C-alpha cells in the first residue's frame, strides 16, 4: 500500500496572529511553524500502517522553500520520502489541483489529509482532492482500518459517530482519534539524522488557477472588560436582563 500524507505548514497554536502590508499578509515574524495538528495525527496513523502492514509513506506539501523544515520533521517522524510542490498555496482549490496531480503521478492508494488546517480553516482540500481523483472520501475521520483494498472508517458527526465501509483508493480528512495524543512521536536523534538523507523532491507546479482570493485580514474588535458579579443572584440578573441569553 502506498500512502500519501498531505502536510500543511501552519503557525504553532500559541502564535500571536498579526498582519502586515496593509493587512493583506500574515505576519510570520517570530512565528514558529509546525505540522498542522490534524495532519500529525494522520501521519502517526500512517506510521502504524507502515510498521504493521508494510505500507510506504510519502508526505507532500504545496508551498515555498520555507516549508521544508516541516517536511523534514515528517521524515524524522518516519515518512520515507517527501515532495514539495514549489508554489505558494493560494486557495484550497489550487492546492487540491496540485496534490491531485502528485497523487495521480505517484499512484497512491490511500491519501491522508487533515479535517482542516488551523490557519485558513477551509476544510476543503481533502474533499476536493478526492472528487478530482474520483476516489472515495471520508471526512472528520477518527478511526481507519485497511484490509486489502477494503476500508472501515469511523467519522465524527454532530453528536456522535458513524461507521462506514468503503474501499481504496480513498482520501480521508483526519483528526484526533485516528491516533491518540500519547501516540504522537517526537523525532529522536536517529530519526533526525536519517531524515537528512531521505529524498525531498521539489516538483514544479502544474497550472492551476485560484478560485478565491483573500483581499484583506482583520483582527476581532477588542472586547470590553469582564463584568464581575458578586453572587449568583447578580449573575442570573445580568444574563437575563442585560445579555438576554436566559
Amino acid at each position, binding site marked *: 500500500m502506498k500512502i500519501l500524507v498531505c502536510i500543511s505548514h501552519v*503557525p504553532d*497554536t*500559541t502564535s500571536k496572529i498579526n498582519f502586515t502590508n496593509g493587512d493583506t499578509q500574515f505576519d510570520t515574524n517570530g512565528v514558529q511553524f509546525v505540522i498542522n*495538528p490534524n495532519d500529525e495525527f494522520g501521519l502517526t496513523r500512517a506510521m502504524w500502517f507502515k510498521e504493521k502492514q508494510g505500507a510506504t509513506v510519502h508526505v507532500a506539501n504545496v508551498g515555498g522553500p520555507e516549508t521544508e523544515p516541516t517536511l523534514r520533521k515528517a521524515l524524522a517522524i518516519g515518512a520515507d520520502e517527501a515532495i514539495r510542490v514549489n508554489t505558494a498555496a493560494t486557495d*484550497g*482549490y489550487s492546492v*487540491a489541483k496540485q496534490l491531485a496531480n502528485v497523487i495521480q503521478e505517484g499512484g497512491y492508494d490511500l491519501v491522508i489529509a487533515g479535517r482542516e488546517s*488551523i*490557519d*485558513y*480553516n477551509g*476544510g*476543503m*482540500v481533502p*474533499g*476536493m482532492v*478526492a*472528487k478530482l481523483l474520483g476516489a*472515495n*472520501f471520508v*471526512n*472528520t475521520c477518527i478511526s481507519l482500518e485497511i484490509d486489502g483494498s477494503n476500508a472501515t472508517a469511523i*467519522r465524527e*458527526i*454532530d*453528536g*456522535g*459517530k*458513524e*461507521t*462506514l*465501509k468503503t474501499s481504496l483508493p480513498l482520501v480521508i480528512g483526519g483528526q*484526533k*482519534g485516528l491516533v491518540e*495524543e500519547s501516540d504522537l512521536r517526537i523525532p529522536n536523534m536517529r530519526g533526525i539524522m536519517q531524515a537528512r538523507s531521505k529524498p525531498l523532491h521539489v516538483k514544479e507546479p502544474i497550472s492551476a488557477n*485560484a*478560485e*478565491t*482570493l*483573500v*483581499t*484583506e*485580514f*482583520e*483582527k*476581532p474588535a477588542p*472586547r470590553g472588560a*469582564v*463584568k*464581575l*458579579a458578586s*453572587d*449568583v443572584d447578580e*449573575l*442570573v440578573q*445580568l*444574563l437575563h436582563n442585560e*445579555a438576554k*441569553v*436566559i
Partner: protein
Amino acid sequence: MSVLVYTESEGGTFKKIAQEAVSYAKGIADQLGSTVTAIAINSNHGADLGTYGASKVLELSNDSLNKFNAEAYAQAIATAAKEEGAQVVVLSSSANSKFLAPLLAIELEAGYVANVTKLPISTNPFTVKHSVFTNKAFATSEIKTPIKIIGLAKNAYGVKENPVPASVSAFSPALSSNGMEVVSVDKATDKVTIADAEIVVSGGRGLKGPENWGMIEDLASVLGAATACSKPVSDMGWRPHSEHVGQTGKPVASNLYIAIGISGAIQHLAGINSSKVKVVINNDPEAPFFKAADYGIVGDAFEVVPQFIEKLKEFKSQNA
C-alpha cells in the same frame, strides 16, 4: 437565477441551522434582486421554509438517502443548482455540510468559502468575510467563479423571519451509486449536542475529577445546555473526546458559554471565540479567562455552581 440553500433536517424536521441558512440566503437574494430556492432531503415540511424567505422548495424524497451520503447529497444539490441556474449556494457549518461542500465545489466548478460570518460585503466583485486562524482573525475573500458556495458560520447571522409564499415541488434527480456504505450510526438522541446547543456548560481541570461532573450535568440540564470540557479533561479520560472544545477540538458557537474551572489558555479560547456571551467561574482572579469573558464570578466552583443551579431553578419557575 436564484440563491439555492441546502436545508438540513432531522427526522423530517428542519434544524435551526437550516432556518438560519434560509434567512441568510434571503439576505443575499435581496442584495442580488433574486429569490431563494431551498432543497430539502427527506422532509415534507418544505412549506415551513417560506417563513424565512424561501419562495420555492424542492423536496427530494428517497429512502436511499435516509443515511447521509456526501457524494449522493452533493450530486442532488449540484443538479438542483444547475436546474435553478443558481448563482450562489448556501450551506451550513454542520459536519455533514462541511463533508459535502468540497465535493459540490468541484462538481459545480464553484469557488467555496467556509465559516462566512456576514452577508457579502459586495456582490460584484463577490466578496465575503469569514473567520480564519481558528477565530483569531477574519479575512475578506473574493470568489471569482460564476457560481459561489458559501459555508455559513453557525449562529453568525441568526434566524430571521421574512415570510413569503413558498411553492413546494417534488424533486427527483438521477443519483448514481458510489463506494460508500454507512454500517452504523451511534448517536445519543436524548442529549443536546455541542453543535446544536444554544448554551454550553464546560468544565476544566479545576473540577478535580470526573466524580464532580454531576453538578456540571445538573447545571446543563437546568439550562437545556450541552456539556463540554477542556482538553486535559478529555485527555485524562474524565470526559469523552467528543466534548473537548478548542483549537484542536470542537468549535463552539453558542449564544452562551459557561466555563467552570477552566484557565483560559489561548488554544481553548480559540475554539469558543465565536460564542456570543462568555461567562467564567474560577477561584483565581488572575485566570486569563477573565480577560476573554463578558461576565464572571471569582469563587470556588464547588460553592458557586450548586448555588447557581438553585437560583436558576427558582428563576425558571418564576419565568415559566
